[in-house]
């Protein structure tokens, strides 16, 4: 199964590029953090030093090394994406499956909840949560996970509603398979694919939102984030153009790669069969 999946995925060059880029970005941030001589908030040299051998992307307004900052920021960005994907994805798949499989009050209630969450303005909701509970990175991830699950749930719900009416599900009922087994063994493996594709999209949305928060200065003050660096660089654009360059490129690459991977998954997992 895995082999076949890879063989098909491999055909989408852009998606393979996305996977490799994401891997390279992760490695880059890990190694840069491991071998850096300064911390992200540590003063490394004079302020506003342009790129040099010692500080390949220069220093910021306080004299912190932007290369090191970016490495830390990237790690946080990737973590936010991954954690939100896992959290939101799990909630989405579970709620969506329950909502799609069962009938009656449970289905109506879950469907209503999904609809409500889908219609709430995402950025605003995250802002409210953070201003209530404080802007730590954990709160940001929780806020994102708890808001970004709804689209996955909606997709999952539709899938389960289609698959549950297929003959093989009926065949399982006919030999007395238990409901939870039908849902987990028969329906989930045949319905979860579009949701996985969507989860990859939500990861990139989460990163954009988190960067936006940090850009506006609403991020975790104890954590360096790409959005924060870019937000800071904005103030000194004409004095020190280099401040936003590397973090900007990294953020762009991350989001682009995630979208490419998501497209690739879509092609492999949801082939349109004629």
């Amino acid at each position: 199964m895995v082999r076949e999946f890879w063989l098909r995925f491999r055909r989408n060059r852009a998606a393979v590029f996305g996977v490799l880029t994401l891997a390279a970005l992760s490695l880059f941030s890990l190694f840069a953090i491991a071998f850096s001589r300064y911390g992200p908030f540590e003063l490394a040299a004079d302020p506003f030093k342009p790129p040099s051998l010692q500080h390949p992307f220069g220093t910021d307004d306080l004299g912190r090394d932007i290369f090191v900052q970016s490495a830390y920021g990237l790690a946080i960005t990737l973590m936010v994406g991954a954690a939100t994907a896992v959290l939101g994805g799990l909630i989405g798949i579970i709620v969506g499956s329950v909502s799609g499989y069962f009938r009656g009050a449970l289905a109506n209630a879950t469907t209503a909840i999904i609809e409500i969450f889908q219609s709430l303005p995402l950025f605003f909701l995250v802002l409210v949560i953070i201003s209530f509970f404080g802007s730590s990175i954990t709160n940001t991830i929780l806020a994102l996970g708890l808001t970004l699950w709804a689209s996955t749930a909606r997709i999952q719900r539709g899938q389960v509603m289609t698959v549950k009416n297929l003959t093989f599900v009926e065949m399982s009922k006919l030999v007395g398979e238990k409901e939870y087994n039908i849902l987990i063994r028969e329906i989930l493996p045949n319905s979860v694919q579009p949701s996985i594709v969507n989860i990859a999209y939500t990861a990139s949305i989460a990163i954009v939102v988190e960067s936006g928060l940090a850009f506006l200065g609403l991020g975790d003050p104890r954590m360096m984030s790409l959005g924060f660096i870019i937000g800071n660089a904005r103030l000194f654009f004409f004095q020190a153009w280099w401040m936003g360059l590397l973090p900007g490129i990294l953020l762009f690459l991350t989001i682009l790669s995630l979208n490419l991977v998501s497209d690739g998954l879509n092609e492999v997992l949801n082939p349109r069969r004629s």
Partner: protein
Amino acid sequence: MSLLKVEDVFKLFPVRPDIFGRAKKFVHAVDGVSFSVEEGEIFGVIGESGCGKTTLARLIVGLIDYDRGSIKIKGEEVSEVKRLDVERFRRTVQMVPQDPVMAFNPRKTIKHFLTRPLLLHGGLGREEAVSRAHQLLEEVSLTPADFFLDRYPHELSVGQRQRVLIARALSLNPDLLVADEPVSYLDVSVRGQIINLLKEVHKKRRITVLLISHDLSVVYHLCSRIAVMYLGKVVEILDARDLFSKSLHPYTQALVSSFSVGFGISRGERIVLKGEVPSPIEPPSGCRFHPRCSFATDVCRKLEPKPLFSDGRLVACHLYDRL
């Protein structure tokens, strides 16, 4: 003794319920059907699409519940057994579904497909279940069985899949096997294999079979008796040997004449019915076949014919006043 006894069974499906969940109109899918199937016989049900034959099958295997009437298998009311001891009910009746493609979970092997029922019911361990699955595959002539156990459904031909479906239906040793169009997806040149397999299984296991099909030749070949359905009602029950030559109901005669088109099996002029099958939402008054029947009279339009019985034979038509 009759193994399956269906008495005056009704199943209506609501059409587009209003916002309060009430429906104004209903599809009269099965509308007062009665017949009984003797132990060890292959009993056929024929009719065109929308006549209610598939709904009937689903009612008998308990996939849906009937609104009214009674379905008894081995003297026990299906709705009761399903409620009190659903596991025993599953072991009493099993079904071979129509579509050998959609009937399989595409991500599970044949081994999973065949061992699940055994693990759920047989009190068997994993290994015993696999060896039982092995035997079942041999029974339906899929050998070497080990090879087929590890295959995914898409790796099998339609005919092979149909064999696996039969094996699964037999895995719980049911008393009654309901086969819903078991050969309709197969090419003519391979259809005979499955027909022969069903015959063989029936003979060896002395199992009772309810065979549902739109293909008259298959039903004729396999069954001892046949019920003909039209718009949710049984219009005739007859000995299979009489199907092509001695049917009584004008609908059966028209069906026979249309079906054997080209082969000239039936004698006489080809009967071409006028019009289409009316909607089962608002079935015609009186005899449901009257708008298409060339013998229809005023009585047929007003009065529903009472079924006449004699010697296991039935006909519901105003043309006959006794059998």
